[in-house]
């Protein structure tokens, strides 16, 4: 599959930054907010001119890859059949300011991306773009080979989908540390030393490879055992 058209659900801070990066990378970009086009068209035409402000169904129908950049507490507002058969990037995290009380949003026994995958059961979820601050994403996207280039963690269960997203992340301006296991998404959830960090490939890989030895990693494995 060749990705030419990127669809972003969510016209908040992260969605807009990703729309800007995708435009810069030469993709055709569609983006939707929670309601009508009216509510976001001024924002989109001003902040990311060139992106097409649309509604969810339009965005999904006209895109090769979908990025979920809505508050984690609201993904269930999207009909799962809408994303049926689609390659979907989960860029979401629990964040109280938009999500409210954690226990009301997430099942504490599952990683957040598993819950997203369980809900969108006919879609292929790959987690990335979630662990770097949105202004770092905006300011630190660089061409391949630049010594200052930062890296993102990419993970999912579907091998081909992960490889596809890995190429996409590269085109958006970031190196990639790749796993083929959606539950490893826990490694970049809030509380992880990677959440909010902006690291180069080697630094990111080093923490991922030694994740069980980080405080957060130890905490996770102790709750599992």
């Amino acid at each position: 599959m060749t990705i030419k058209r990127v669809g972003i659900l969510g016209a908040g801070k992260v969605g807009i930054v990703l729309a800007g990066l995708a435009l810069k990378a030469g993709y055709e970009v569609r983006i939707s907010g929670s309601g009508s086009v009216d509510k976001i068209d001024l924002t989109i035409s001003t902040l990311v001119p060139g992106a097409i402000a649309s509604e969810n169904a339009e965005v999904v129908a006209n895109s090769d890859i979908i990025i979920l950049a809505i508050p984690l507490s609201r993904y269930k507002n999207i009909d799962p059949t809408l994303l049926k058969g689609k390659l979907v990037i989960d860029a979401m995290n629990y964040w109280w300011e938009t999500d409210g009380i954690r226990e009301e949003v997430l099942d504490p026994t599952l990683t957040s991306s598993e819950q997203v995958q369980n809900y969108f059961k006919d879609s292929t979820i790959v987690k990335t773009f979630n662990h770097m601050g949105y202004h770092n994403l905006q300011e630190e996207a660089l061409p391949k080979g630049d010594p200052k280039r930062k890296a993102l963690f990419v993970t999912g269960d579907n091998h081909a989908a992960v490889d596809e997203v890995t190429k996409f992340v590269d085109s958006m301006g970031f190196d990639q540390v790749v796993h083929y296991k959606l539950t490893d998404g826990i490694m970049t959830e809030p509380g992880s030393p990677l959440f909010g960090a902006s690291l180069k490939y080697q630094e990111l890989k080093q923490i991922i490879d030694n994740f069980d030895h980080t405080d957060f990693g130890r905490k996770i494995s102790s709750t599992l055992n």
Partner: protein
Amino acid sequence: MVNVDKLEFGIETFGDIVANEDGSLKSAAESIRQIVHEGEIADKYGIDVIGVGEHHRPDYSVSSPETVLAAIASVTQKIKLATAVTVLSSDDPVRVYERFATLDGLSNGRAQVMLGRGSFTESFPLFGYDLTDYDDLFNEKLELFDKLRTEKAVTWSGKFRAALKEQEVYPKTESGKLETYIGIGGSPESIIRAARFGYKVIIAIIGGQADRFKPYIDLYHKANQKFGTPDLPIAVHSHGFIADDNHEAVEVAFKNIKANFDRIGLTRGWAPMSREQFDSETKVGSFYVGDPETVAQRIARTIDLLNLGRFDLVYGAGNQTAAQRERMIELYATKVIPRVKEILKSKGGAE
């Protein structure tokens, strides 16, 4: 082009606990009295505004900023008295109006309300609100506050508060309208909302380059055009620290700002601040740290870049000593502000 003569400069504190010289911490009560003293110093040196934040946590001393501002009012002459911010979402707009109208009376019209959604969770359960209503609460309460601000009889009903019918609120202000800002953190929706209500905007830039806000400021102007609301000068607030020596300033700021951000990050699962992040924030980002010349150059750049009408420096983050805080205010007023104006005038800002 920035109008240098109309530019305003403020300082803001979130009410961080002040440290003694030996590193031990002062009490919250002592920290509150220190802010009043700092308000007096800022007024003496001609700083335009002092803003005091509202928090309900052990690491900040001020939960009731208007009370602190009232004390500052009684020992100052000219400085404007602002909150930074008033968490309207978990407050009662009628009470907010009453408290600020009172402060405005006490201070001969120097009260300034900054309304925000807040960036901490504590006030919601404390006052019986549900965090999941975060956005709805702010929208509804802003609507009511906007009516109250006309100082005429208000008829209103909503979801979160008892309705009002032909209700007058008191005291009336001498100017007839409380000066009001909306504090925003950079979500496009918030900017458009502020434009729709025709309020002044203060943007909290607490991370990353000021440059990325340029399109947001265009958005504010375009939204004003769309709603037919006045295009008011934009204000920005950011963290900073100033000392006589550049190296000393950087080290004190690193220790304190890092401690402050890391403590907050801990509750949100955000990784601790690295030295690299801090250095990048001070070099090109949103921390204004260094000797007066360094800080003046960076503030002047931001004001020019974003065409601002006001710049507020957030001081005292972490646990700084009274001497560090007071020296910073003095340097900001006597060295940085005049130098910023000089730099901007040399670039062609109005005389």
